[in-house]
Every structure is written in structure tokens, then in C-alpha cells.
């Protein structure tokens, strides 16, 4: 007898999907607002009863907390995203309710992925998520680069799914089990299989050297889809990667641990190296996200110290910052459409106070310079990694963040020192404005008074 109780969040989203499918035909505005409402309900549900859902399972308390916290973060992220997406889609003439369905499917996939205890379920979750993402990349069907992005993402993603399946089948051949928990006696074959699984996951979180799709897909897709790629699905895949690392004790397997460290170092360096020369905002953000993935992998590897709090702190701050940056970008429009090049940001200071100052906060926070929360995010990751003895990786990490500071400063330079060149259209997107101002405030306030966030993470991990 299957206990359906533990699937309540997933069933909830599934019913949202069905309702949206029927209702969206008649009134897409209402359908979209309904989804926002649904996710608000879901986050309240998870916040209050999240732990009870999984009480009948045999999972450890820590894992249950991990599920609940990540699902809360995902649903809150979805609320923000759904509130944000209306205006940008309208601007591109893409305002159709199917877009929300893709998001719902992707979130459903992410939920399944996060809480899967079995490689096959994980595969299903990952595929559900990825297929929605391919569609979102190609959503602007009239735009050539959007199509290109979709096809690139799909073909490379399919390849990585192939790796994943092949890896899973090798593990199954060796151990006769798909479960994440019962893998104890490793032979060389399962190690190879697991490394293939890891490669596929690295691809999903766009860690170097499996990052090649990232800049093109980020650039080609509609900006609102780019925001989605950069935040929620990546977050879910990272959590699953974290679980694989934790459940399978990868730190004890020398060869895999080595792969992990190499990927971390390469991501840190490739991210900054690629970003320096970029002229297009979204490509720069793509490479900068690769650099941040390096930090997160460092956090995954050194989770023993100070519990999962460090990783989650980093992830939450990173999500908020990314949401803020994209909310500003989505609010900036010229007569020719969206902002594409970094040089278009020139003199933003004179055009809009709130946008330029929020961007200043976001980029200094990404660079890890106090007094913004990004500093503590990096500080905790580095504390954990130094405590766990990853001194060489920590040195690479801080040096990469100095180089990263260079291109963040270039953006700030463009906004604050250069003269205004382009005429901005007044977009009057209130929700976007609220979101980036709120993110900016949160980033600053978390630095001064981080207790709420720390306590939230802490309580769930007790």
C-alpha cells in the first residue's frame, strides 16, 4: 500500500496543472493569478505541515528537513516568478498561458527530483524539468536565436540524459538496485556509472567543463526564461547533487571526489575567465553563474562543518540576487526592445535612481564585498572549506572572486561613470520594481540582521 500522504506537494502541483489547463483556455489572466495563489498556499502548507508529510517514511530527519526547506524555497521562488512574468511576456508578444504550464511542469519535475530516493525517479524528475526548460528556451518561436537556443539546449541536454541513463544502468548492472541508499560495496563499474551520473548533473547545473550550452542558451532565450534557468531548476539539480554526494558518501570514494574537486576548480576559473571579455549582459551573467556554481560545489564538498546552513545561505542569497538583477533587466527597455549589451547600461545612474542603486547592491553582493549579504555567503562557504582542509580550492576561489570583481566593477562603471546614451522607455512595471527593490533591501538587511534567515535554516535542520 502506497502512502499518498508524502506526495501531497506533488499532487497539489499536479492539480494546479490540470486546473490551469482547463481554466486557462477561458481566462489566462485569472489562471496565472490562480497559480500564484496556489503556490502561496503550497508554501504555507509546507511551512506548517511539511515535516508531517514525510513522517511515515523511513528517511532521516535531516533528509526530510532538506526536502521541506528546498520545496519551500522553490515554491516561494515560483510565486515571485509568476508575479514577474506577465509584463515581459506581453512586451515580447508571448503572453500565453502555456508558459505557466511549463513552469508548473518544471517545478513538478524539480519537486520529484529533490525528493527522489531512487535513480529512476530522479531521472523522471530531471527529464520532466528539462523538457519544460527546452520549450521555455524556444518559446519565442518567431525569433531565430530563441529557436537556436532551444535546439542547442535540447540536443545537448538529450546527450546528458543519455549519460545519466547509461550511468544508472551501469550502477544497476553492478549492484542490482536503483536506490540511492543501498549502494555500499562499490566496484569499478559502479564508480564509472556514478561518474557518468555526476557528469549529467554537472551539465544540468552548468558546472565547467560541461557548461558550453550555458552562454548560448542564456543569450538566445527570452530573458524571462533565462531568469528561470538561472534560478529554480538549477537550485533543484544542485540539491539533488548535494544529496547524491551525501547519501553515497562520495567524499570517501577517491576517484569521484577527485572529479568533484576538479570540476569545482575548473568552474571557478572558467567562469571568471569567460566573463571578462563578454559584451552581452546575459552571457556575462551566464559565466558569472558558472563561477558561483564553483562556490556552491565547494559548499557541497565541505558540508560536514556547520551543517547544511552554509550551502543554503549561499543558495538563498544567490537566488535573491539573481532575481533582483533580472527584475532590473526586465524593467529596462529601449525603443528597440530589451537591453542586450553591457554598454547599453551606460549612464543608468542618470536615468533611474532605484535601478542603478539596486544593481550596485547586487553586483557588489555577487562580488562578495561587504556590507552586503553576498560577503557572508562567501565567507561561510570559505570557512567551511578551510575547516575541511580544502585550502588550495579556497585560494582559487578567493582569487577568482577578485577577477570577478573586475567585471562586476565594469558594469558598475558603465552605470555610474559613463554618460547616458540611450533613451529609456518608461516601462511602468510595478511588480518588477517592487521585486528588485525588495531584493536589494533584503540583500542589505541580511547583512546587518541575518538572524531570521539563519534561524529559518537552522530550525529546519535541527
Amino acid at each position, binding site marked *: 500500500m502506497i502512502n499518498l500522504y508524502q506526495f501531497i506537494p506533488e499532487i497539489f502541483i499536479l492539480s494546479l496543472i490540470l486546473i490551469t489547463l482547463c481554466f486557462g483556455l477561458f481566462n489566462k489572466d485569472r489562471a496565472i493569478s490562480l497559480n500564484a495563489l496556489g503556490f502561496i498556499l503550497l508554501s504555507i502548507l509546507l511551512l506548517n505541515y511539511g515535516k508531517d508529510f514525510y513522517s511515515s517514511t523511513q528517511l532521516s530527519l535531516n533528509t526530510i528537513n532538506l526536502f521541506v526547506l528546498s520545496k519551500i524555497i522553490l515554491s516561494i521562488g515560483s510565486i515571485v516568478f509568476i508575479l514577474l512574468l506577465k509584463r515581459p511576456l506581453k512586451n515580447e508578444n508571448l503572453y500565453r498561458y502555456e508558459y505557466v504550464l511549463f513552469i508548473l511542469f518544471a517545478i513538478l519535475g524539480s519537486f520529484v527530483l529533490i525528493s527522489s530516493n531512487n535513480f529512476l525517479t530522479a531521472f523522471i524528475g530531471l527529464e520532466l524539468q528539462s523538457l519544460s526548460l527546452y520549450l521555455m528556451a524556444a518559446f519565442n518561436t518567431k525569433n531565430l536565436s530563441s529557436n537556436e537556443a532551444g535546439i542547442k539546449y535540447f540536443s545537448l541536454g538529450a546527450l546528458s540524459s543519455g549519460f545519466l541513463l547509461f550511468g544508472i544502468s551501469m550502477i544497476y548492472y553492478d549492484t542490482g538496485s536503483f536506490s540511492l541508499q543501498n549502494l555500499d560495496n562499490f566496484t569499478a563499474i559502479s564508480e564509472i556509472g556514478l561518474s557518468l551520473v555526476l557528469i549529467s548533473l554537472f551539465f544540468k547545473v552548468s558546472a565547467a567543463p560541461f557548461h558550453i550550452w550555458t552562454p548560448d542558451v542564456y543569450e538566445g532565450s527570452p530573458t524571462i526564461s533565462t531568469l528561470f534557468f538561472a534560478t529554480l531548476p538549477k537550485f533543484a539539480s544542485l540539491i539533488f547533487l548535494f544529496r547524491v554526494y551525501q547519501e553515497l558518501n562520495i567524499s570517501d570514494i577517491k576517484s569521484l571526489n577527485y572529479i568533484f574537486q576538479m570540476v569545482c576548480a575548473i568552474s571557478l576559473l572558467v567562469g571568471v575567465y569567460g566573463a571578462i571579455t563578454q559584451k552581452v549582459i546575459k552571457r556575462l551573467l551566464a559565466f558569472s553563474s558558472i563561477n558561483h556554481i564553483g562556490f556552491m560545489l565547494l559548499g557541497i564538498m565541505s558540508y560536514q562543518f*556547520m551543517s547544511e*546552513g552554509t550551502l543554503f545561505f549561499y543558495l538563498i542569497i544567490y537566488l535573491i540576487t539573481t532575481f533582483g538583477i533580472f527584475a532590473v533587466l526586465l524593467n529596462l527597455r529601449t525603443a528597440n526592445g530589451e537591453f542586450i549589451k553591457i554598454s547599453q547600461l551606460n549612464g543608468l545612474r542618470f536615468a533611474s535612481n532605484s535601478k542603478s542603486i539596486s544593481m550596485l547592491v547586487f553586483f*557588489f553582493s555577487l562580488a562578495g*564585498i*561587504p*556590507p552586503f549579504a553576498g*560577503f*557572508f555567503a562567501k*565567507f*561561510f562557504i*570559505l*570557512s567551511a572549506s*578551510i*575547516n575541511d582542509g580544502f*585550502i588550495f580550492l*579556497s*585560494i582559487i576561489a*578567493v*582569487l577568482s*572572486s*577578485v577577477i570577478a*570583481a*573586475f567585471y562586476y*566593477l565594469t558594469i558598475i*562603471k558603465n552605470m*555610474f*561613470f559613463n554618460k547616458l546614451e540611450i533613451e529609456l522607455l518608461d516601462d511602468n512595471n510595478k511588480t518588477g520594481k517592487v521585486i528588485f527593490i525588495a531584493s536589494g533591501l533584503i540583500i542589505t538587511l541580511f547583512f546587518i540582521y*541575518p*538572524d531570521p534567515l*539563519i534561524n529559518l535554516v*537552522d530550525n529546519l535542520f535541527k
Partner: protein
Amino acid sequence: MSFPILSLLILTPIIGALTLSLSSSTQLKNKTIFLSGLWITTGEFLLSLLLPIFYDKSKNGYQFIEFHTWFDKFDINYYVGVDGVSIPLILLTTFLVPICLLCSINSIQNRAKEFVIYFLLLESFIIGVFVSIDLVIFYVFFEAVLIPMFLIIGIWGGENRLYATFKFFLYTLAGSVLMLLAIIYIISKVKSGNIELISDFTFDQQIELVLFLCFFASFAVKVPMFPFHTWLPDAHVQAPTSGSVILAGVLLKLGAYGFIRLSLPFFEYASIYFQPMIFALSCVAIVYTSIVALRQLDMKKMIAYSSVAHMGFVTIGIFTLTQDGINGAYFQMISHGIVSAALFLIVGVVYERHHTRMISDYSGVTNVMPKYSFFFMVFMLSSVGLPGTSGFVGEFLVIMSTISVSVYLTFFTAIGVILGASYMLLLYKNINFGDLKSDIKQLADLTNIEIFYFSCLAFLTMLLGIYPKLLFEMINKSISLSII
């Protein structure tokens, strides 16, 4: 201590900046903005005067301590307090910031509101560095200083400002991140960021050497010491006058302060081990940059190089590891803070009137600007180290303390004094004496505001030169504690 004076010192400028930023900029005139900034900073100065008045010189350790938990879980605390080493530097900061605002009322025309806001933020961050006795918040403030300074140089700087401000930011950041790693390592070993606790902790000798070098990287860039000094001339030349004043007056002292406050007490073995290296670098700094300064065509660049040479005295003094040496170095820091700030203001005065900093464009200024030449002379002589001015006491003590270490060291340090005299006198001669150039004739002499702040600075220079005990009383006890 119930009255939270240190937090108030940190918060007053921030609150002032917030209030200013919320006011609408279109209605306010530049003058009103500067005046409100002046009120805030003057109030801050008066507030900081309470520190030396209520500071108990007979007691050891930190006073006016405030302790708040910040990150409960990670044992990171907001822990501030002052001792004799920090109070004079806080006073120097609060004293120089109003002068910076005063001197830019006329020269900063565009975006005045932002200018005042950045200066207020800068002031509170700098004070934060001087009052923090927890490593993490020390680092936080140390790093945060970069942001307003980056914007000040980048927005109001000269024609090559982008290069200068990027170089300034990235050099300093590259140094600081190594210190960050060292700080994290120390905290993970000692399980606390409290400076006093860490001083009592003994590290492995090998590790201590590495940690020392990490801190050294950060402070040596800030001071700046010889191979890391190249950002300074660029930053000074491109910065607006007020930026140069605060940069030379206070920011350079952050590095030296870090050496006294952190490096010496933490790493006793390493400080002795690296003594020769630091002496060698400082000697090179003194002699080499003095010679470089001798051949400069740009006034600001010349004074910038002279700053490097003068800070060389400071590092030598600190690493003699004797009471006299550190006292002298500290005196030199304060004196250099006043004098170099004044010299940059001096350059700013003629630059504002004549729009060139080339020495060759000036000649015979004393004919049209006698008051200007008078103040120039006071500060020039103080920079040279004439007895009776503040420059003398510091240099004298440092040179005296070097004898106990090595006579060669004394020799090179003394050469620095001679070279210093030659370039400063040359600068003074070339600008003030000689034939009156025709385009100099219409230059107006100092205004009342300028006379006001130059007299304040000159008075301080003389006061410290004639009665150095004023400062030594304050610092003696605290410094004797940081010596090994």
C-alpha cells in the same frame, strides 16, 4: 559604559547619508547639501572629542566596549572598543572629513548630493575599522571602505580616472582576500574572532609565517610598501582634491594600523622572522621613491611618491619592535596624515585656480599669493621634518630606534630625510619663487574658508611638534602592550 558612543560614531554619518539620500535632489542647492554634510561631520567631530576626554589613560585594554551577538551560530560578534592606538586616528578621520567637504564646495559642481553621501559613508566605515576588535567586523569595514572610494575617484576624478580607480580597487581587493583566508583560518583554530584572545594564541611556526604573509599582503598594499605602491600615484593624481586628502590622510594609515593592531600581537615569531625583509623593502621604498619624487613633473604625483617614502619610515619604525620605534612610527602616521592632507589641499588650491598641476606651469606664485606661500612653507617644512613641527618628532624617533637594530638601516633612513628635504624644497622653490609668469598674475590669494582650514591644520602641526607629549600620553600604554 552604558552610553554607546562608538556605535553612535559609526551610525551618525550613515543616518546622515540616508536622510540626505531620501531628500529630493532637485529642490536642494549644492550649497545647502554641502552645509548639511558639514553640520553632520562637524557634529561627528565634536562627538569624537568625547573619546579622549573620557578615556582613562591609566587603564590597560579596551574601553567604551560594546558587545552584541551578530551571528549567534558562527560566533561572529559586533564587538567594538577603543584604546590609545585607535583614538588619535579616529580624531584624525573626523577632523579631516569636514575639511574635505569644505574644500570641495566650489570644485564639486555636479552630483553634489552623491558626493556628500559617499563621504559620509566613507567616514563611518573608516571609523568602523578603527573601533572594531573582532576580526570579522574589522575585515568587513576594511573592505567596505573600498566602495565609496571607488565611486569618489571614478565619478569626480581626472581624465584617466577609470584606470586609476580600477587599479586602486583590484590591488586592494587582491591583498585583502588573502587576509580573509587567513582570518577564516585563525577563527577556525582559535574558535573566536576576538583580537585579545587571538593575541594569546600561539600558532605553529610554519603556519604563522604563512598567516603573517597573508596579512602582510593586505596591509602592504594599503600602506603602500615598495613593490605594491604603484596604485597610489595613479589614484592620487586622478582623485579629486578631497579624495586625495582622505586617501593620504587616513586610508594609508589603515595598513599601518593593521600592522600595529593585528600583525604584531598575533604573529610574534613571524614579525621577528620577517623583520629583515620589511626593513629592506622599506629602505628601498624610502630611497627609491624619494629619487622618483625628485624627478616628477606633476605636483600631486610628487607628493604621492613622498607619501610612499614617509610611510616607509612608519613600517621601519613599527618593525623595530621597540617602544620608541613604534611610538615614532605612530607619531609619523598622525603627522603624515595632517601634513600630506594639507599638501594635497595646497595643490588643490592652485589647481582650482589655474587648472594645471604641472610644476613648470607655475613660477613666482609668492608675488600674487603671499598667504598661500606662507602656509605652503609651513607644511613643506613639516614634511621635511624641521624641528618644531610634527614631522620632526616621528622621523627622529624612528631613526633613533633603528640604531639599535643596524647602523646601515639608520644610514638609509637618514638618506631618506635628506632626499625628502631636497625634493620638497625644490618643489617649493619652483612654484613660489622665480619670475612671475604672465598667466599667474590673475590668481587670487586664499579665501577666508581656505585660510580657516589651513590655519587649523598648521596649528595642529605646530602643536604636535612643540608638545608631542599630548599624543604620547595617549598611545604609550597601549603600544607597550603590543610589543613582544
